[in-house]
């Protein structure tokens, strides 16, 4: 393995103010986790930053919990035919029931899950793949992870 001076991207005599690009720093990944590259490519190193195992474990489990129960989950809600949408924080709802209740209140009409019909406003959502789906088909937790937008359809006219 070549012994390049891989530790200091800056020469000692003149400080170069241009940082190495992420791809340059990533060359050093082959020298193992002891030289973490900058931000986006940084792996979770077990030995950096220098904190003790108990703190490291505490922060790891906090991170996992936060990922699962992210504090805010804002999505846009549109009612078909209404140009202006609303914004909703889905993390404040405990499940589909409270979501529907809230939407019904917000749009002053009864909103339900289920098939489109002539009478009701039905709630649909766009998932992370871009597809429009019926709300209510999957468990709430899964729904939270995949939902990107909500749309309330108008009752069908014949």
């Amino acid at each position, binding site marked *: 393995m070549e*012994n390049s*001076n891989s*530790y*200091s*991207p*800056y*020469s*000692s005599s003149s*400080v170069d*103010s241009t940082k190495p690009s992420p791809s340059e720093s990533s060359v050093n990944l082959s*020298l*193992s986790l*002891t*030289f*973490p590259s*900058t*931000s986006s490519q*940084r792996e*979770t190193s*077990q*030995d*950096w*930053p*220098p*904190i*003790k*195992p*108990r*703190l*490291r474990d*505490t*922060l*790891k489990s*906090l*991170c996992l919990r936060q990922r699962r129960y992210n504090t805010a989950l804002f999505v846009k809600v549109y009612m078909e035919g209404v140009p202006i949408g609303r914004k909703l924080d889905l993390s404040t709802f405990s499940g589909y029931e409270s979501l529907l209740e809230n939407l019904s209140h917000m749009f002053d009409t009864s909103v339900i899950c289920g098939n489109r019909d002539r009478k009701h406003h039905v709630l649909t959502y766009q998932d992370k793949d871009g597809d429009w789906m019926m709300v209510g088909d999957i468990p709430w937790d899964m729904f939270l992870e995949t939902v990107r937008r909500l749309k309330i359809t108008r009752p069908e006219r014949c």
Partner: protein
Amino acid sequence: MNYFPDEVIEHIFDFISSHKDRNSISLVSKSWHKIERCSRKRVFIGNCYAINPERLIERFPSLRSLTLKGKPHFADFNLVPHEWGGFVHPWIVALAKARVGLQELRLKRMVVSDESLELLSRSFASFKSLVLVSCEGFTTDGLASVAANCRHLRELDLQENEIEDHRGQWLNCFPESSTALTSLNFSCLKGETNLAALERLVARSPNLESLKVNRAVPLDALTRLMSCAPQLVDLGVGSYENEPDQESFMKLMAAIKKCTELRSLSGFSEVAPLCLSAFYPICQNLTSLNLSYAAEIQGNHLIRFIQFCKRLQRLWILDSIGDKGLEVVASTCKELQELRVFPSDLHDEEDNDTAVTEIGLVAISAGCPKLHSILYFCKQMTNAALITVAKNCPNFIRFRLCILEPNKPDHTTSQSLDEGFGAIVQACKGLRRLSVSGLLTDKVFLYIGMYAEQLEMLSIAFAGDTDKGMLYVLNGCKKMRKLEIRDSPFGNAALLADVDKYRTMRSLWMSSCEVTLGGCKRLARNAPWLNVEIINENENNDLMERNEEDEREKVDRLYLYRTVVGARKDAPPCVTIL
């Protein structure tokens, strides 16, 4: 002085407790050496492999209190394999065999087994105090033997240890006659706790001053504990995820109000913010507060609490407190001596502006005139800030700055941080411990070598350009004892320049640097009084058998230390002693 009989001299020596001073006394004359060693009660051994138990006992037959340290400091950060060494068992065996009247044992980064604890508990009738810090290898069964057999146990202090929890009844093992406890800390235990046994134990320990429980002690149990121990001075609480109901909260607050002697608080991992507020009644009495595990409590709650803690001398906190929070600390805590700010976001996911920067550090330095020790994790720093901090606080004894991203320059000028750290070492004439980070060239080490005359411990990571850097430090810092370096371009030239320097130091650690196997072998040849250890976990290696080519191979991890007892015999396969 020799006109006095020995007993008088011994009595005079009794007033001298510092290890350094006693070591100096023993060098004055043969008779002083003898009097000193026969009367010495407390011995501190910073590296358990520098000496062996037999020689210790021979020199200090009246030993009562022993402190031993095992693994090097970087073991805290997963850089040392678990099986590296630092076994306490041979020490306990030897002390037991020689019938030393051991009363206190303090261990740090050592491997302790249940067998060792059992032997300890049975061999020393006056044993009073066991303090284990960052140790591993034992289970709650070992604790049970200590509880059951140490009749005069006053202190059992377990800090940050890896303890296998057998969910046994170790707390039950304290006999009913055990009423002498002054300190009990089991905060690092991960399993269930027998609450009834704990409550009974606390109730019959009127001298209990320090109690630190683990996560498994719920709020109502804590309330009961505090109610029967209002004399507590130091309390570590468990974890309480949910907000307590009104009644529990009121009961807790009532119990806390009675603890008028409470000065130190810790614990709080996974704790709902309301639980912290229960401590408002006594917060103005607090001198020490450790909220470094309270990852769930947000900055504003922390600030609301701390603004009443006017007597705080020691504060350990997470960076979620933010610069604003540190400004509150600076204006409130005028007695502050020690501050540690730990990172709360390891993955830089939050991309938040609420973590601390150089602004918080400057505020603290300006507001807290008694500050002498700091450990500060942050995302960015500037030379200007460090220069200001140096001017504000020339009294630093310990200055540890960790910029989370390696090699990060001054974010306003893109320069290295050489000048900033240079200002720190120049102004802080009493500096004994320093950790540097950020973008640093050889120049910072020139400054350190020139100005840091009292420096005993230096930690270097991702810094420097050439061997000159390390040489500046080795040549300049006369009082250097522990030097630990990782990921820096220092090689054989620096390592071998002055071999005798290592006689004056406890140890040197170098990992992911430029030293080669050949260089290390040469060092080992020239310094038979050093143990030169190469740690290499990767392949099945037999480094002594390597051929010429491999001499140029870089050494992954090097740990060397002076010793009077030669190469240790308990090294695992991944460690080669040259």
